[in-house]
């Protein structure tokens, strides 16, 4: 497979997941602002901006600027509208390798952006989630499981781990009386609230919710699941196979990040949640760089602007 095409597929995966997860994240945030009058709008939006890596914002952080920066404004690179545009660009340059189903799902989504940006926030988030589900469903159904597929899966899962880490940071930083609501909303946003209730027999504790989102091996949006999927995709891509250790830098980075979470006592994790989550995001970014260096090499025009800088 052409390196350029591999890279496009990897980024289609990332953009797709980012659009979906940003919509989920904003949904949680909006609900928190609406449902909990004790929430300080400016502080909580500021926290969200920090989590999303927006640190040079000049205006007042409130729900309106948040919606602009992260959802509506095509000029803001972190917005859903811009991410969908980038996804479509990536798809266009890999047009001949995508199935027509996937391409037209992506293209139609992009064409719907102008209409979507005039919807009410909740409607728009729903629309984004429906459209991304449609794209990932078409991909699931029609993409052959060749290298390209694994690049796509890899992109999705790295992005998913990264975004779940951001969601967890947001929930953990809610603190105080609002924390119960925050965890519940986060679970809802991930589509895992019901399954969480079934798993924990209706016991809602913050620590249980965190455990579910961090460590559950069966829940596909948990950090451990996403990282495991990403590692599996990397293993499939490494055609040479391996006998000892990990020659692939990305695999080493992701594996280490996963075990850091998996083998650490939950309490310890919860105490230093924002720090741990930031470390995880850095690992995802480094892994993405390592994949680029190994498989795509010649490119540098895809760049996140929302990356955690430390």
């Amino acid at each position: 497979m052409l390196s350029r095409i591999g890279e496009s597929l990897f980024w289609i995966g990332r953009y797709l997941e980012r659009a979906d997860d940003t919509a989920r994240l904003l949904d949680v945030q909006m609900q928190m602002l609406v449902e909990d009058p004790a929430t300080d709008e400016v502080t909580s939006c500021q926290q969200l901006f920090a989590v999303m890596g927006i640190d040079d914002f000049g205006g007042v952080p409130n729900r309106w600027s948040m919606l602009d920066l992260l959802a509506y404004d095509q000029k803001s690179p972190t917005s859903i509208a811009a991410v969908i545009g980038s996804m479509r660009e990536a798809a266009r340059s890999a047009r001949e390798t995508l199935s027509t189903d996937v391409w037209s799902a992506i293209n139609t989504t992009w064409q719907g952006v102008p209409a979507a940006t005039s919807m009410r926030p909740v409607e728009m988030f729903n629309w984004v989630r429906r459209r991304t589900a449609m794209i990932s469903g078409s991909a699931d159904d029609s993409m052959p499981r060749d290298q390209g597929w694994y690049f796509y899966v890899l992109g999705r899962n790295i992005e998913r781990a990264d975004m779940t880490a951001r969601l967890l940071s947001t929930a953990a930083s809610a603190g105080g009386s609002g924390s119960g609501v925050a965890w519940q909303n986060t679970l809802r946003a991930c589509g895992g609230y019901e399954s969480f209730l079934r798993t924990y027999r209706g016991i809602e504790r913050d620590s249980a919710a965190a455990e579910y989102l961090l460590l559950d091996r069966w829940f596909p949006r948990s950090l451990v699941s996403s990282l495991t999927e990403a590692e599996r995709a990397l293993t499939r891509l490494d055609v040479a196979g391996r006998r000892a250790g990990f020659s692939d830098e990305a695999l080493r980075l992701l594996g280490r990040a996963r075990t850091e979470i998996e083998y650490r006592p939950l309490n310890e994790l919860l105490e230093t949640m924002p720090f741990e989550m930031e470390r995880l995001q850095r690992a995802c970014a480094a892994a993405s760089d390592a994949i680029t260096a190994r498989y795509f090499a010649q490119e540098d025009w895809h760049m996140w602007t929302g990356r955690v800088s430390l």
Partner: protein
Amino acid sequence: MTQAQLFEGYGPVKGYDEMYGESGLRDLYTSVHAAFGQMPPEEVRQRAEGLASSYLEQGITFGVAGEERPFPLDIVPRIIEADAWDEVEAGVKQRVKALEAFLADAYGAGELFRDGVVPRATVVTSSHYHRVVAGIDPANGVRIHVSGIDLIRDGDGDFRVLEDNARVPSGVSYVMTNRRAMSSGLPEVFAHHRIRPVARYSRQLLSALRAAAPAGVSDPTVVVLTPGVYNSAYFEHTLLARTMGVELVEGRDLVCHGGRVMMRTTDGLAPVHVIYRRIDDEFLDPLAFRADSALGVPGLVNAARAGNVTIANAIGNGVADDKLLYTYVPDLIRYYLREEPILRNVDTWRCGDADQREEVLDRLHELVLKPVDGSGGKGIVIGPSATREELDELRAKVIAAPRDWIAQPVISLSTVPTLVEDGIRPRHVDLRPFAVNDGDDVWVLPGGLTRVALPEGELIVNSSRGGGSKDTWVLARPTEPIEEPDDDLEPLSQSSSQSQTMAPVPAPSREV
């Protein structure tokens, strides 16, 4: 509303109309005429909109000034009967063969110059003449793997050649998608005709490209080279790569090592043997041509010289479709093939010739002047509709550089029924049949791209000047088998409104 309203005000038509002759409706169009007559006008419009929205959804677009636009597809098909097509097919084949012989000669022995068929100066002064490829012998002798010979029908309905395209003719993707869209948008009309299929094009092209592989390569790797997503024909590049099942590469995906061309893959470098390039000569190789080209691949020409890679179409083909050389093509056909031209040229004056220039300058206001190396309607001045200032400016240009201009009389292009604002009206069309040369034979795609000028009276039919296209149906003879129906392209999605109002679909007739 009734049939009368859609066709009301259609005629009489000045010039040759393909639907109405002097004695009324031609047999060829009775079924189409009746079908549109039976359909309520709102339904016709609705289906036309369905076609447009399905194109937009699929991203079937071309780029104009950085903006993606759908290429409007008219809902009324253009029909050509088998007999007329025989002439087109034979004429196109003949022309391609003569141009191949000319290119081999012009970049090789140069016998035609010695025999005085074409002055050497005419060829070597062309801006498309590239000395760098002189002496490169293509692996299977083919230089014009794909050509598009632009035809028009004159006042008598005779096909004439307007220009040759031997470099990178585009538009074939619309032929394929138009057919697909029409079969789902107008199924009942479609089923009433026995239409020669067009979907074979990709297979034909791929086998011609494979046949052109360098000597000794038994299983060649073919790629399509595109300038990238911002090119106006990017959609076509993706469609061709997809339907041939080959990689679509950009210049940056390729690299030359020791006279061989490789592509960068996720598993390292992989060899490439045949490049169907959709990039102009000047941008192909910064070492041989424009040093500032970021689209090309440094070292490509060397690799082709070394015989390790085939570039299709060959570099330097531009001398064959230069508009000045066009005036010599009938002579070339007689010289190389010892045949009379089957398709006539449009009468043309060469401004480089002193006597002819005199006449042209006297009659500037009634002629069409064309720059010899222009394409896409660029720089064309139509005398009767030009202002005095424009004519004076033109006169100065012609006197300054006579070699750069040819003149032709204003030809009344034939008209075909087309859906416009007021109903179905006659609009001017041309036709670009596509021919694929695999070295053994020249295969002509039955149909080709019909471009229609949507504004009334407009004579330049070009996508960059508000043109649309039509599905072109070449009818099969009653006894002729239609071996491959057009079903190996992916289906075009239909809008729901369209399928709700659609009449029950009769099974396509496929009697053999």
